[in-house]
């Protein structure tokens, strides 16, 4: 009996063919100067419809705003507006636009474009309308001058104008094209969106008309979506990417040993905490809440799970402008914790449950550590994983006891997070803890009308102190954002508002 195939030789030739094709492919060079690997793809590039980081970060490359946060997140600096003045009563803002600012199609950026864009951002279709509604009128003085008026002072408005959602769009084109505009968007930012393959990434090219001299330094960027953390790291190591964001903490140390790679940790305006539902016993008791804070070994979590890429926090406000330096994180003190538990009426501890986002590996690990830590004072925590996207709606409905979560700030002003995590009633009823402090509410109302300065600083610092003391949360830490690039890249940065900056990137 004879055979008609010889499997061995077939396999050999198949392998040979594969090898040949792979070397051929390795030889083809990438068109882009700079290849960035990110975790998720943008969903949209319409600034008023964005709420996910990927979309926001992409928009920040393509569009420009009147003002922008400085890279260190400490203050606002001029962007399209080269200067601005605020009336003494804080109700009138006058912006002077840069005459050299142009959209990527060469058209100048005018005051009319600004008025249109901000009115759109405050409009019905906008998801960010409340941030701009305090502005009651726009007055186009000339092509390069615009005056905005408020009914009453609203200090955070300037910071809101630095938000991506306040991006300046070419009024005429958006009006003409409607939604189609965003298929080929035109902005005045440093880059132009050349192509976008959904789920795969974007190709950006330099905006030749960008107002900042000699920026960007590179001609083209490709942003590649690599959802898996490990793959992103491996691709960086393999040289398939020049830089990546969201380096998993547990990989950062290992990555540092690679001679070709620089790893960075950027502090960002985010705070991780455990929400405590103060409508439920025993979380209604301040002593119990403090006890939990004393019982938890935050340092161990930071060291063991975040590999040092975080700092324990004192309140629900991250370290940013107007931070209260005098506060210190709750120390680990089991005796104190037990004493406080006894004072709160639960000397032997209690049983409770904690929501954890299912998709977040770090959160799951931190939850395990919290579970182990609290067990030492007799508090048995059952972990209850929950679909990431429904965690917010679940805590909002009040149907929880503890919930491991975090809050981030889109602006460099603490107003946003104070409103979100400490004020009740307000947008989130103190981040769904239902904790309420009349003092904090009063301070919040005051701070919004107080011009920037030491007066406003005092107000914020008192808010922080109250939150720290009454502990509606277990305060955990404020993490760094780890990112990495190959050594031949410089100027790639993640800034405190967590977005990356590409315009200063130089590739050697």
């Amino acid at each position, binding site marked *: 009996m004879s055979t008609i195939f010889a499997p061995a030789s077939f396999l050999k030739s198949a392998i040979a063919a594969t090898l040949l094709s792979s070397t051929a492919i390795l030889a083809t060079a990438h068109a882009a100067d700079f290849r960035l690997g990110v975790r998720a793809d943008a969903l949209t590039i319409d600034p008023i419809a964005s709420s996910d980081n990927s979309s926001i970060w992409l928009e920040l490359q393509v569009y420009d705003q009147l003002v922008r946060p400085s890279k260190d997140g400490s203050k606002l600096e001029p962007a399209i507006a080269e200067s601005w003045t605020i009336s003494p009563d804080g109700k009138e803002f006058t912006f002077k636009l840069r005459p050299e600012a142009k959209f990527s199609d060469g058209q100048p950026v005018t005051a009319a474009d600004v008025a249109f864009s901000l009115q759109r951002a405050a409009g019905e279709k906008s998801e960010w309308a409340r941030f701009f509604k305090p502005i009651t009128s726009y007055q186009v003085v000339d092509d390069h001058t615009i005056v905005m008026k408020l009914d009453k002072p609203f200090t955070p408005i300037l910071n809101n104008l630095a938000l991506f959602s306040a991006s300046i769009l070419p009024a005429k084109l958006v009006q003409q094209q409607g939604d189609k505009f965003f298929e080929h968007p035109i902005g005045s930012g440093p880059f132009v969106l050349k192509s976008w393959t959904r789920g795969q990434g974007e190709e950006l090219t330099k905006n030749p008309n960008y107002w900042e001299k000699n920026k960007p330094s590179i001609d083209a960027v490709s942003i590649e979506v690599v959802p*898996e*953390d*490990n793959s992103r*790291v491996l691709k960086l190591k393999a040289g398939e990417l020049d830089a990546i964001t969201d380096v*998993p903490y*547990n*990989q950062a140390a*290992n990555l540092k040993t690679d001679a070709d790679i620089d790893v960075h940790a950027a502090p960002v305006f985010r705070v991780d905490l455990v929400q405590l539902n103060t409508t439920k016993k025993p979380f209604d008791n301040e002593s119990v809440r403090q006890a939990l804070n004393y019982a938890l070994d935050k340092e*161990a979590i930071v*060291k*063991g*799970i975040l590999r040092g890429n975080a700092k324990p926090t004192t309140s629900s406000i991250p370290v940013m402008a107007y931070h209260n330096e005098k506060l210190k994180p709750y120390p680990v003190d089991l005796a104190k914790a037990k004493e406080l538990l006894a004072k709160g009426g639960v000397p032997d501890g209690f049983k409770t449950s904690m929501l*954890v986002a*299912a*998709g977040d*590996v770090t959160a*799951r*690990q931190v*939850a*395990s*550590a919290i*579970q*182990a830590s609290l067990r030492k004072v007799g508090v048995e925590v059952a*972990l209850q*994983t*929950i*679909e990431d996207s*429904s965690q917010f709606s679940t805590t909002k409905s009040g149907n929880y006891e503890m919930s491991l979560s975090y809050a981030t700030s889109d602006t460099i002003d603490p107003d946003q997070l104070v409103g979100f995590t400490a004020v009740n009633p307000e947008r989130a009823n103190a981040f769904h803890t239902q904790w309420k402090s009349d003092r904090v509410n009063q301070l919040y109302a005051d701070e919004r009308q107080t011009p920037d300065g030491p007066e406003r600083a005092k107000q914020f610092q008192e808010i922080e102190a109250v939150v720290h003391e009454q502990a509606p949360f277990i305060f955990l830490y404020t993490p760094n954002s780890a990112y990495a690039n190959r050594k031949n890249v410089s100027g790639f940065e993640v800034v405190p508002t967590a977005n990356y900056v590409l315009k200063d990137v130089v590739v050697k």
Partner: protein
Amino acid sequence: MKLLSQETVRRFKQNRNLQVGLFLLAVIVLTSLFGPSLVPYDPEELDFGNPLLAPTLQHPFGTDDLGRDVLARVVAAGQVDMQVVAVCVLLPFLIGSTIGLVSGYFGGWIDRVIMRFVDILWAFPFYVLVISIVGALGPSTTNIYLAFSLVVWISFARIVRGEVLLARRLEYTLAASVLGYSHARIMLRHILPNVITPAIVFMMADVVLTILGVTSLGFLGLGIQPPTPEWGVMIADGRNFIQDGWWISLFPGLAIVLVGLTFTLIGDGLDDLLRPKA
């Protein structure tokens, strides 16, 4: 009804697949039952002092990034996974076989309606349907049971119905009908014992598919929820350490392969053993 005839015993003795398969099954069952008390580590105990230890005598499967003993976790996960798989296989087997039996035996419009429905469900890829259902209802063990039952019964229904259609034409069935036996008796005593073999054999193959399915759900974060140890989740968690902690992902995967191999062997063996010789 005589199941263990001498003939069967003789055939079992020659059936290497089944012997090896049953041996491995015994190993798996015993490990799940007694393993947790033999391994001196708590599968959920964090030990920040000993992260990412390579396999040694102390930790035969090493430790993970949080210092947990991988062996303890693999064993604990085995208990969880095997339990889930057992329910996810048995429920659809019972539902599907019953529907297939009734549909095939009575034929007519009942059969047409059921089979149309089966055709439609059949078009949805297994993973797509399971993931959509679990995703929609939320990841919980009950929902996993529900999703698998809703999806997998059609396989059993198709298999049993096909066999019933053949058996219904066989002369012993005709004879039972001529003898005036009730439909229930004909179905349960004459048809069912003779058609269930392929379904049982497929059930073994289904164990393999189900263990892959359940662990895939875990891998995607849609399955059994941490901190309950689960093989798919462990593999997913180990991905980040594939270079300096390959053992975290390797061993749970090997456990899955072992289970798969075991049931494939048992399936092949049962096929040989139960197929009636003319």
